[in-house]
């Protein structure tokens, strides 16, 4: 589904060259939940930018859903981002003045063909993350966890091949973070491919496979037979007071 072949990235500042990725190769199959781990300075962010088609590698090849991404021009790569990738950022990146619904609608407005059932898609996306009753709320009326769920709904709305989550729990307390992880696990259970970038071992342990990046290379690639279950952790944390995953918790 996704394949990186010998991806390199070197930053240049004047005459000084800083190699950040020194040949990264791996495959992700459809329906996998992969965590990419690494301390800061290991090229994690750079890799994530290339995976998200936000940045162009210096060398190598990136196949996403059968498309050789970097054979395309900027406009076409924008379309690839729109159609194939759903981003979830650490800082949520919601538009302050727009309602949850309008935020979720945003990717569809950039689609090559605006779908006729756009608002229905947004509604069902928001329902999938348990915010069916908060669609008219603005980000500043929502808790951090709820804002991140809006962002997940936004990532889902285009039915992308890949959900790319960059430290999605980094700005959240433990409970909200677990809620987000349980939603990602639920989506993965429904067959979606999820790639999670994190420096946090605890968070990474929720994935079925962990790639560890060190000094610009894949250092370790290991499968987890029994990843952590965020829903169960949540249950344990709240003593069962928690609603089902994605339910409303007002932890503001």
């Amino acid at each position, binding site marked *: 589904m996704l394949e990186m072949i010998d991806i390199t990235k070197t930053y240049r500042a004047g005459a000084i060259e800083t190699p950040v990725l020194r040949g990264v190769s791996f495959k992700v199959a459809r329906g996998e939940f992969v965590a990419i781990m690494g301390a800061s300075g290991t090229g994690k962010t750079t890799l994530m930018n290339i995976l998200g088609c*936000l940045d162009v590698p210096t060398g190598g090849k990136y196949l996403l859903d059968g498309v050789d991404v970097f054979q395309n021009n900027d406009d076409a790569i924008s379309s690839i*981002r*729109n*159609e194939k990738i759903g*981003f979830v950022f650490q800082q949520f*990146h919601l538009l302050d*003045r727009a309602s949850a619904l309008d935020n979720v609608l945003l990717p569809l407005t950039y689609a090559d063909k605006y779908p006729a059932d756009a608002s229905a898609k947004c509604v069902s996306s928001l329902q999938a993350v348990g915010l069916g009753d908060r669609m008219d709320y603005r980000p500043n009326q929502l808790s951090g966890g709820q804002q991140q769920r809006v962002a997940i709904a936004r990532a889902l709305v285009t039915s992308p091949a890949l959900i790319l989550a960059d430290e999605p729990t980094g700005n959240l307390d433990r409970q909200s973070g677990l809620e987000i992880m349980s939603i990602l696990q639920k989506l993965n259970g429904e067959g979606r491919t999820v790639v999670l970038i994190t420096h946090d071992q605890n968070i990474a342990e929720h994935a079925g496979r962990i790639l560890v990046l060190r000094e610009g290379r894949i250092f370790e690639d290991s499968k987890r037979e029994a990843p952590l279950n965020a829903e169960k952790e949540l249950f344990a944390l709240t003593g069962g007071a928690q609603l089902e995953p994605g339910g409303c918790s007002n932890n503001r």
Partner: protein
Amino acid sequence: MIALGRNKTRSFLVMLGVVVGISALTVVVSMAKSANRKVMQRVNNFGPTAIMLFAGGGKNLPGPDPTVATLTLDDAKAVETQVRGVKSICPQVMRPMVPASYRDRSYEVTVIGAGTAWQDAWDWYVSSGDFYDEQDYAGMARVAVIGQTVVRELFQGASPIGETIRIANANFKVKGVLPAKGTSPMGTDMDERVIIPLTTAMRRTFNVSTFTMVRVRVSAVGDVQRVASEIRALIRERHNIRPPDLDDFRVVTPDIIAGLSQMVAGTLNRVLLAVTILSLVAGGIVLMNLMLLSVTERRHEIGLRRALGGKRRDVLLQFLFESVALTSSGGIGGLVLGIAASLLVGRLTAKTTEISWEPVALAFGLSLLVGLVFGLLPARRAAGLHPVEALR
């Protein structure tokens, strides 16, 4: 659009320049239009086929100066017989504030001694009685044609035809009455006049051998310039004026009248036009700066939009649209303010200002243009941001 509401003060500042510019422009256009109409009116008052020949040279426009009188009857005769295209010619001499009386009533009138073609020359025909004829003219008869103010002041509405009035201590028989003409553009009463034969005026009343002006009518508008220059050449020759000596007379044509009026209106309009352009440019620069600031502030939003699949063009258009929305709102505000100001100016100066579609179209066009031109650089900068840099 979402972003525009966020910084109300800033948006207001951007619009302000455009508001000032567009309102100034609206005033300019409406004033220019009314000024233009006034020019046309003046030309029509003067007569589009008329040429005036004044005694006395110099630059100052005229009102015949009664103290300068270098034109002779022979000059008039020469113009009439030697210049082709002259339809009629009326020499005249004019004296303001001449005492006139009828029985026990008296009034100061303007006495005009004129040729027999006076009615035709001025398109002003007696409404009752007759104009004096060739015989009166040749015989230096003491006859007069009087204006409505004179009728009112001396006769108090009674019919003056056939009555005798005293003008400058001589008796004149009233032959005809002119219809009212009202106030001249210079603000003088046109109806307080008494017309007497030029011969009578020169020889018997004022005792002069020269007169102050000649009014010439040409057959066709297209002939005016040619006839005017031929008259000038002819009079120079007759008065024996050679270069570098200046004319001791002055030929005035309708386009000089038009030019004079336009000059006055034009200066004012140029000032306002400069205000317009300056404030639009100032507004544009403010817009550009604030949009650049906005691009910096909204880097994350731009990065997000790019990450979600927005193309460079989408971002460019979004920012351009915001600029244009700002300036267009300013344009609408300016238009409203400008129309209000035009109406106010019209009321205060008792001058007519015209409201028409041109300033509306111009306001929209210009504010759109300002938004596009000055919004382009910030929009390009926004579109050029690298998504990774923008999201960081």
